């Protein structure tokens, strides 16, 4: 299985889109590209299982490397472990659903789909890179398409939000840049090769100096507490597919980076800074949940709840044990699917009712039963109903967190648990107001979902249910990866 295919296909699709003659061609080409990516990732999943069951216990499978810039020892290394495969699955599903949801995008369709595929290109590249330079390269590639997507096709205060998002994310990546350069020179290894860096022991002082930069830098992408403000504005201003990509993929880049680069390479510093990470994560969880209570715009509700949900990811990473880290990755996948579904369905509702304000809606269940069912599913996943992925993921994080006997950690865990109640409040209130009661929109033609919308929802729901009902496959996928990270932490703290 050649991982670079995952780079070539989105790139070819993106370039191909530019040569299309009309919107019809653009969307079919996009769909074909996204479908091929999805099939490739599924093939990758089964190839991965096959390799593992054949007893291949390498940390990273399908690894390939070639020298890129020899004078600086920058290589292009690809490879995947269970964590990256699960992130790739998420990416492929969200991309496919995103393309389907934007089926009717008519204004500047070419540019729109070009940017979507460019964003996908960045995300795929990020998840398969095993070299910090390449990782950084793809991380930054994904920023500008978001800026343009929000700024051109967005709604509301789109220019402001786009600017804020681009600058904050670039700020995050600037921190990553300093951190990685420091790691390059101070580790003594003079390489960006992730595997090589994980083998050398980076001096403790260097770790303490550069871990916060890397963690915060990636943390900005995943809405770590003081730097979460781009999330609500960016998500709510973005077009539907843009929000899905932002919350579903882009925020996961940060979580993955925190785990793969910061924590994996600098375990000592991770242990040292863990209390701060947990503190920030807990604040994000609580703050996000309560801020959601105040919102009346559906997109803002989901955006703030994303802050809260992504707090669980950071909480899992900060707990530094195998269960919690597995849970963190599961939460990334689960939240990615769930929030993409949520944004997709909000987009569908908005297209029909032309409002996103909860108070202006009501009784939509009768008018569009399919969309409302999807809405319920997304909501119930968000509040952690057993049977859906949200429950599995958050439960795993919390179980992992409880293993940590320190009082402060216990308090953080309890607070995180409590936030689920708040989540239930806002989710049930929103779904109730939107779906039940008398119909408030009379003058709008409220037809139900089209085939492309149904297909998009179906793909995401399939993922959610597959994880919710049978979590073991995902668990088996992630655990070995988490184990490798844990081994480093345990072996070094001894």
């Amino acid at each position: 299985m050649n991982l670079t295919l995952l780079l070539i296909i989105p790139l070819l699709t993106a370039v191909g889109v530019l040569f299309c003659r009309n919107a019809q061609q653009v969307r079919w080409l996009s769909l074909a590209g996204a479908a091929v990516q999805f099939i490739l990732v599924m093939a990758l999943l089964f190839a991965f299982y096959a390799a593992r069951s054949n007893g291949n216990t390498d940390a990273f499978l399908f690894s390939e490397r070639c020298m890129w810039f020899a004078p600086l020892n920058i290589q292009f290394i690809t490879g995947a472990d269970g964590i990256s495969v699960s992130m790739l699955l998420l990416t492929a599903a969200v991309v496919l659903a995103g393309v389907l949801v934007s089926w009717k995008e008519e204004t500047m369709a070419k540019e729109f789909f070009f940017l979507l595929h460019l964003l996908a290109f960045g995300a795929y590249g990020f998840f398969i890179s095993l070299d910090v330079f390449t990782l950084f390269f793809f991380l930054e590639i994904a920023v500008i398409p978001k800026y343009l997507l929000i700024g051109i096709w967005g709604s509301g205060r789109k220019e402001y939000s786009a600017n804020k998002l681009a600058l904050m994310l670039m700020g995050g990546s600037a921190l990553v840049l300093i951190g990685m350069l420091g790691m390059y020179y101070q580790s003594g290894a003079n390489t960006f090769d992730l595997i090589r860096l994980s083998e050398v022991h980076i001096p403790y002082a260097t770790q303490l100096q550069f871990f916060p930069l890397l963690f915060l830098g990636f943390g900005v992408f995943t809405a770590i507490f003081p730097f979460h403000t781009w999330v609500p504005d960016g998500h709510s201003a973005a077009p539907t597919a843009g929000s899905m990509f932002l919350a579903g993929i882009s925020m996961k880049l940060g979580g993955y980076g925190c785990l793969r680069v910061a924590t994996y390479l600098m375990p000592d510093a991770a242990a040292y800074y863990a209390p701060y990470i947990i503190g920030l994560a807990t604040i994000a969880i609580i703050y996000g949940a309560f801020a959601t209570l105040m919102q009346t715009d559906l997109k803002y509700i989901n955006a703030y709840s994303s802050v809260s949900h992504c707090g669980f990811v950071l909480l899992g990473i900060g707990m530094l044990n195998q269960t919690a880290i597995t849970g963190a990755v599961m939460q990334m996948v689960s939240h990615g699917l769930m929030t993409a579904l949520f944004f997709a369905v909000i987009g569908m509702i908005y297209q029909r009712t032309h409002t996103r304000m909860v108070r202006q809606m009501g009784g939509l269940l009768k008018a569009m039963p399919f969309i409302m069912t999807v809405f319920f599913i997304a909501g119930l996943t968000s509040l952690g109903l057993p049977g859906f992925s949200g429950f599995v993921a958050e439960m795993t994080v919390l179980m992992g967190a409880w293993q940590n006997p320190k009082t402060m950690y216990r308090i953080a865990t309890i607070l995180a648990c409590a936030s689920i109640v708040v989540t239930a409040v806002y989710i049930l209130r929103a779904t109730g107001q939107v779906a039940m009661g008398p119909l408030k929109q009379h003058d709008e033609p409220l037809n139900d979902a089209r085939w492309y919308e149904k297909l998009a929802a179906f793909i995401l729901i399939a993922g959610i249910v597959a994880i919710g009902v049978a979590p073991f496959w995902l668990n088996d996928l992630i655990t070995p990866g988490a184990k490798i990270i844990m081994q480093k932490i345990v072996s070094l703290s001894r």
Partner: protein
Amino acid sequence: MTDLILLKHELLLTALLLIFILMKLGKDISNSSFLKMSNALLLINFIIGFFGNQHGQMFASMFQTNELMALQKNMLNGGLLLISLSSSRWLNNHIHLPEFFMLIVATLLGMFFMISSNNLLVFYLALELATIPLAALCSFDLDKRQSSEAGMKMIMSSAFASGILLMGISLVYGVTGTLAFTEMSSLIASDHLTVFALILLFAGFAFKLSVVPFHLWTADVYEGSPVAVTSYLSVISKGAMVFVFTSVLYQVFKPMQEVMYQLIYIGAVLSMTIGNLFAMRQQNIKRFLAFSSIAQVGFILTGISGFSHTGAASATFFILVYVFSNMAAFAVAGIVSSAIGRETIDDYKGFYRTNPFLSWVLAIALFSLAGIPPTAGFFGKFFLLSAGAAKGNYVLITIAALNMIISLYYYLRIVRAMFMDKNETPIGSVNLSFNERAAIIICIAGILISGIWNGPFHTIHHSVTEAFSITPF
């Protein structure tokens, strides 16, 4: 006679200069046919530049050349060709077209000698040959008041700068008793007088490079000059100075690295910060690009401060990237300015509706200047910063990284104006001539390819290593 091949680049330019003079003296030819011929000649000049390069010294080692210098000269040759192509609209309507080419080739000749100089006397002569015609070029929009003011500011400040530079040179001569670089570097010791001389020399360089606090002339001259000259100033003239700075000052003042590092450190921090802060509030796009180019010099100095082969290579590579990116930006600005006559950023509102192609070109150029992947600017900035980080001064790297965010802010301002803002009276649709289209496509291809493909950087790094092994650093 075989030695003359070492002078190939310079001889070619001299021949061009003579041809231009003869064409001017001969029977009247129309601007468009002159332009065709000059473009063809520049293209031939550019192509021949790649063949038969050797290394060696001439004129009692006053002149030296090697693979790296040939490469740098080729880059500048290519830049001149791009300028000539992209500003063909403005050139076509100018009554003194032949003189433009004579002057610009003369300054380029000066820069070539400057790059190749191995002696302070040759260096000074070459520097003046590069600067004096440039001042005349700045006031080349003969009927515009701003242009004459720009020329005046250019000649005054450059005369002042060469006065300071000369004082430095005379002190160095007093201390070492020689003007040859190779002998000088072994004679230099870091006593007070030499430090003073170094500071004066650095100030002279800083003037030409427009390093803060010696940048005050930059914005006015850039804004007032015709766009073709502005792009020449900001790309080629600056590039040549960077080349000379890396090779000469590195080479000669190697024993004084510590003092040099302090100077470069201060210059880099100030240039980045001040350049960026001023760029944020500019309205005129040329003035805006002037301040952004001041900030870019700060980044280049960050790379140079690494004092390593990588540092020199990354600075050279960045100039290559900078030629493409800045040239693309100036090409769009110049085309719009000469076709429509509008130059402020507000004029670019709604530009995408009328000129999608030019909008993407400008956007890609700005992204490259801001250092966003996959454009070459990302690689350029990254290499500069990683060369600078080798010294272990993370304060400098942090300031540079923060400045990248600030610069992104104002580059996005233009992108926003083009793509997102609405405008009642947008700039009308502009038809591109073949020349302009060719220049723009070359620039965009350069921006997109020269970074991802590792060939250019490897070539540059290789020739830097070669060059420094011939004349040890």
